[in-house]
């Protein structure tokens, strides 16, 4: 090292450490590390791109879809503009001016067939709108002024205030309608109202999904803990054999598993036959263990058990048997040694397993659909229905968003109570 550079290093006149060539040391260091950083970034770039494309963007899209409502304004722009000045509380349907604009919009919409799409969208708010738009579409080209009478001639619903109130309410480009539906509420001319008691379903299903998921998580824990303990404390060869048994559910197809459950659990099934045979129950009172909540809990516990056992196992594997021995040598009986010494050290495994199982189970829908009957279905079954059957993707997105929010809330609560760093997957 030359003496000048030593001067720079030892006696920075301005308080800034400088490298040999006089550039500030920090800058010099940053430059030296830049290549390194760039390299690391390039290494993770494919994964980053993959995650953005396949995970973050779909989620952002879902979040957006749950409030997106541009279709009304795009399809009938003039009508939407004119309806702004119309007040449904007057009890009068809009005037000819609005109908004329609506006619013009409608003719245009009919040409590119977007009127039926708009009808479907409005049908979410008011059943019958889809039919009304389809029916009107077929006649709209031949209409003559005055348009108000012409429309009412096609269907008298066009003369009703409520029809126009629905269109007016659906006009904004963002809507809370899907979220309201997802919470069993509805926006009417009197503001937001809950649906009648017997029509509410989503809140009920959210609650049931949560409760059943907790039950499934707890039963996975109760069944998985002793098995994981056994696996962790057996010689490697034996535990590998048993691990294969634990993983077996992973490797069987869903159809095989479902058939197996049916054969086992149905009223004329193996378990009932056995119980009748040994005389625990009589033939007329066979247990109902499938097509209800019991079926869902049994089947899901079976499927998700490995997700509980594996993290538990990997954590327990690291708990040296000398801890329990130490506790015993210090005077603790078997239970105290387990509860005060072994159990607390296995908590990270419980946390990881419980989070995995819980999150997987609130998102499951195939198994509940197959063995859950009516009392064992989850909110995800309704989401799947709206995605693939009713095509009400906005509502599906709103339900999905709420589910996502619930999971994040639970994460937050978990973090507050147990601490997220207290989770160990292996």
């Amino acid at each position: 090292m030359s003496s000048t550079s030593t001067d720079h290093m030892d006696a920075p006149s301005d308080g800034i450490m400088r490298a040999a060539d006089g550039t500030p040391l920090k800058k010099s260091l940053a430059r030296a590390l830049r290549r390194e950083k760039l390299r690391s970034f390039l290494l993770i770039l494919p994964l980053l791109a993959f995650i953005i494309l396949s995970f973050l963007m779909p989620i952002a899209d879902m979040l957006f879809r749950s409030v997106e409502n541009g279709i009304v304004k795009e399809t009938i722009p003039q009508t939407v503009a004119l309806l702004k000045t119309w007040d449904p509380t007057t009890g009068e349907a809009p005037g000819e001016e609005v109908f004329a604009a609506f006619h013009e919009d409608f003719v245009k919409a009919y040409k590119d067939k977007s009127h039926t799409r708009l009808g479907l969208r409005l049908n979410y708010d008011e059943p019958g709108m889809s039919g009304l738009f389809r029916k009107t579409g077929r006649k709209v080209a031949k209409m003559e002024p005055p348009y108000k009478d012409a429309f009412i001639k096609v269907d008298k619903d066009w003369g009703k205030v409520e029809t126009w109130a629905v269109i007016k309410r659906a006009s904004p480009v963002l809507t809370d309608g899907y979220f309201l539906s997802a919470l069993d509420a509805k926006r009417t001319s009197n503001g937001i109202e809950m649906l009648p008691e017997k029509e509410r379903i989503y809140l009920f299903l959210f609650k049931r999904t949560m409760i059943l998921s907790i039950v499934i998580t707890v039963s996975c824990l109760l069944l998985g803990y002793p098995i994981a303990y056994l696996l962790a404390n057996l010689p490697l060869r034996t535990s590998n054999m048993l691990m294969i048994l634990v993983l077996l559910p992973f490797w069987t197809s869903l159809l095989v598993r479902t058939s197996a459950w049916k054969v086992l659990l149905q009223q004329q099934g193996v378990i009932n036959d056995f119980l009748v045979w040994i005389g625990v129950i009589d033939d007329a009172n066979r247990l109902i263990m499938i097509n209800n909540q019991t079926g869902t809990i049994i089947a899901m516990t079976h499927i998700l058990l490995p997700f509980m056992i594996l993290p538990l196992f990997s954590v327990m594997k690291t708990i040296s048997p000398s801890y329990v021995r130490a506790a015993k040598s210090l005077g603790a009986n078997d239970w105290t040694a387990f509860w005060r010494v072994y159990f607390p050290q296995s908590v990270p495994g419980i946390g990881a397993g419980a989070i995995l199982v819980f999150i997987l189970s609130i998102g499951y829908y195939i198994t509940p659909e197959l063995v859950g009957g009516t009392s064992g279905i989850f909110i995800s079954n309704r989401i799947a229905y709206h995605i693939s059957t009713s095509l009400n993707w906005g509502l599906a997105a709103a339900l999905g968003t709420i589910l996502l929010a619930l999971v994040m809330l639970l994460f937050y609560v978990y973090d507050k109570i147990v601490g997220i760093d207290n989770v160990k997957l292996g």
Partner: protein
Amino acid sequence: MKLKLMLLATVAGVAFAAPAVTEELPPCDNCSDSMTIVSWGGAYSKSQLKAYHEPYQALTGITIVNDESSNEAVAKLRAMNEANNITWDLVDVEGPDAVRLCDEGLAMPINADELLAPAPDGTPASEDFGDSLISDCFIPQIVFSTTFGYRTDVAAWNGKVPTSVCDVFDLENFPGKRALEKRPKKNIEWALLCDGVAKADLYDVMATDEGIDRALAKLDTIKSDVIWWSAGADTPQLLADGEIVMGSTYNGRLFSVIEEQHQPVAMLWDYQVFDFDGWIIPAGLPEDRLNRVKHYLRFATDTQRLADQAKYISYGPARASSAPLVGKHAELGIEMAPHMPTDPANMKNILVNNIDWWADYSDDVDAKFQAWLAK
């Protein structure tokens, strides 16, 4: 319609009636030389393969790619449309889905008389297909029905057998578990018909909240004895296992349980509900692919071809002119006509699904129905 698990196996190599139309098949100008056809898979796809695809391929030498995605066709078509990348050329869907796809602008509207061949006697296609043309975009193939099957060996019935769909609601004379579909459609109709609503007023009654409540109240009377199914294979299996004494499903499934598996099960055709299954052409196909689809459709939906399909599966051809041509089952050798939902003996009391009504009300009624089910 979940026909893909239909157990009606077809026999490879069964001599196929050579199409008499070889020389009539017009040339195809500016046509792609392969097409992707989406259907339900299983025995149903096989019947299409035997009756439509194989003869068409033999005549034209093109490649037909089979995709078994009809179950999720509606959602997938919407996704393809949003991505602006339509990879399917022809999609087999149920009637209500066709209506929805048409409304969404995802299916191409057609002119039946232009696109489809007339009957051999010259009757235009629109007349020959008649009521089955339920949507501007729909090209019907078959009529299938949802109806009840019951076990013939139920001791508790004291020798009685159900003769009316209302016996499903009669727990006193016909005790035991019954299977119904986990959807409101058809169940609501049957409940109201058995609650005294006249067939003519049915859909008007259903359009009111009170009507739906009334139907649910009727279903309440048997709710605790119902197993709700979601896959068409469930009811036949439950019947065969003795888990239920009666249950609704598609007629083709019951045909298989009765005629192939020889289970002690019989059909109750009373108030069978007719539905149609057929093709839609996805909107926005490039010209050469569209030409190919049109060329294929004219061949595959003619009178003979629709009648041929019934050799392999017990669903009725959608053309009136095909009915007299329906022959024997290709494998079992039994006459297929009496097993068709369209056979006059089976059609004494039928209900045709009001697809337009369900298109308007299904979301609303489904929510109510599911809420009712869940409680």
